[in-house]
């Protein structure tokens, strides 16, 4: 699966570049389905590679699924995950890992 490969590729780079990752999603809406699947399938692998990094998963009804990344000095970036599937969510995470803050 493309998402699994991307997650493996990110590996522990997550904690090297980022200070905190936040994933906002809705528990039931269709637009968050990809995000929910991503957590079900890949959160554990991602966390095991980055045990010290806070990967905050905050479910809230009716929100637009969003991925936030915090870099050094409080800089933050966000990407909307609206209607994305699992692979696209993984790609979004990768883009945030590689982005300059």
């Amino acid at each position, binding site marked *: 699966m493309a998402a699994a490969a991307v997650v493996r590729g990110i590996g522990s780079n997550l904690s090297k570049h980022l*200070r*905190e990752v936040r994933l906002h999603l809705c*528990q039931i809406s269709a637009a968050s389905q990809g995000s929910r699947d991503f957590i*079900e399938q890949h959160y*554990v692998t991602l966390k*095991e590679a980055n045990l010290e990094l806070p990967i905050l*998963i905050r479910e809230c009804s009716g929100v637009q699924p969003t991925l936030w990344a915090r870099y*050094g000095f*409080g800089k933050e970036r*966000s990407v909307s995950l609206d209607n994305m599937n699992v692979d696209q969510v993984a790609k979004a995470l990768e883009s945030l890992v590689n982005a300059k803050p």
Partner: protein
Amino acid sequence: MLRLPAVSRALAGAAHSQGSIAITNNVRTSARASSNMVEVFVDGKPVMVEPGTTVLQTCEKVGVQIPRFCYHDRLSVAGNCRMCLVEIEKAPKPVAACAMPVMKGWNILTNSEKTRKAREGVMEFLLSNHPLDCPICDQGGECDLQDQSMMFGADRSRFTEGKRAVEDKNIGPLIKTIMTRCIHCTRCVRFASEVAGVEDLGTTGRGNSMQIGTYVEKMFMSELSGNVIDLCPVGALTSKPYAFTTESIDVLDAVGSNIVVSTRGGEVMRILPRLNEDLLKYENILSPFTHTHAISQLFQGSEVGAIAGGMVDAEALVALKDLLNRLDSDTLCTEEIFPMAGAGTDLRSNYLLNSRITGIEECDLMLLVGTNPRYEAPLFNARVRKSWLHNELQVAMVGHKVDLSYSYNHLGETTQVLQEIAAGTHPFCKVLAQAKKPVVVVGSSALQREDGAAIFKAVSTIAQNSRASSGVEEGWKVLNVLHRVASQVAALDLGYKRGVDAIRKNPPKVLFLLGADADCITRADLPKDSFIIYQGHHGDVGAVMADVILPGAAYTEKNGTYVNTEGRAQQTRVAVTAPGMAREDWKILRAISELAGVTLPYDTVDEVRRRLEEVSPNLVRYDDVEESNYFKQAHELSKAVNQSLLAAPLVPPQLTVKDFYMTDPISRASQTMAKCVKAATEGAASVDEPSIC
């Protein structure tokens, strides 16, 4: 005040009770076959009710309020005040509406000649021995006797005898008793016996010489004792320590109970409970803030760390986090420890009371681990007791044996027991497997230990196993964490580190204590020339060791967001203005950020709340609980935890009632609470009270 509507409304399904004393309607009409329902008439209007409904509940369903003193919908029925007498057509005598179940075809006349005569008579009897204390009585204006005598009493008196008087009883430093005013409704007796579980109050004597009290000089020793003040319909039991009222929430434990704060002259006089309902939002007015200049040079190039205490609101927490993050520091800690291993606080389901407080009434088996809910979260305990009384809830406990006001299966206090249950070898596992809706509650005090991660792993395993074996449906959550401090859940939602280990490992040059008074870090743990800033409202331990003290606002003095142990975000409101130069905590942090050169991007409380939403959207969903999932993932990660359980037994810090009164900086600074502790240890007579009339 009870107001009788001019016309009783016809049945519409929904019942309205127009009382400021919110009387909830306990009559539920289910969707069963209508042949089960009984047809009754209230003043000629037909209404269908379930068999077993009392006359009083039937009238309430239609919208007719029947006056009463002894009836309370949360207590058992006594029927001794006789104020609720109503005439039934073609019946020889009036019936007590609160106790009499309706029969088919009855016509209840709530305003007939006989009913009115009965009410006037009862009122006359009640007032015959009642002292003429209205001008000096605390209950004046909110007294049931006053209201009902205006509405239903006679306009002239025939009383020419002398009134009896009763000695005042000393039942503790919280309750002022003037027993002459007591009308013997026995609400306090029933409350103490049923809800609080302590059978201290009772009636002595009969007729004119009847007295309510403890008979022997005994303190009414319960953590729920103050509630009888709200229950008493007259001024017999009032608040001893005690307007302007403000609706707010209680932050002295993590339950977030809804309260009304009554104030006078800038002091908080008393706290009353209120029902958990939707609230309107207020506007907040910014005030200009000035502060000293020394802070501005402080943050240049230094390592900064912060510790957040137990009563900090979410706005201050997010302001502090943003400030420190912009200074390139991630060392933000809470005083309360929560295991960092495994999923930690990534998944909300790991640290919330997932079954919710209302969910306790649905469960059939509860396992408590290392907690004494009676003193850590008394209202949670009252709910468990209610379930134990009415819903056949079985409770088992792993931890030190304590008196919970209900009987439970004490499995032991060693971690060995916990291990055996997790492994499936303990005999209790069979009981757990048969439960249809099990709930496991681990107290946050158990997680403060060094083997907290291992305890959490064991509890998580137990929860997963019992969920699998009970076959309960997807939506039911088994794992619950009962927190003890009001700010913990919000801090975990925002991504704070738990416990001060991070500070111990990397001692910073500048330490920011935000209401941190639990003495976790002392000067000895920090480098020699470190600088400590303390911001809080009751200068306790933290203020003593600080170099700079910034006066913040307490929860009654600010609009703050707190998240309770279920994950429900609620707000406090300003009841009194903060004294002197004190300001709201987030505003102080915003000012500091400007001086430090990293100005935070918000100026109003709405902007702070928008920032809260950016970090964790549930923080601004007031009065709602958001469902959290992914227990499987959390459990998988917890399996990797390699810690072993220590042999020390699981003993919660609060064991008896004397530990209950002084657990946080506000209580430690309170004279009334000090009197309570003294009375609890030495007896009620040991507390000196000025004589009050």
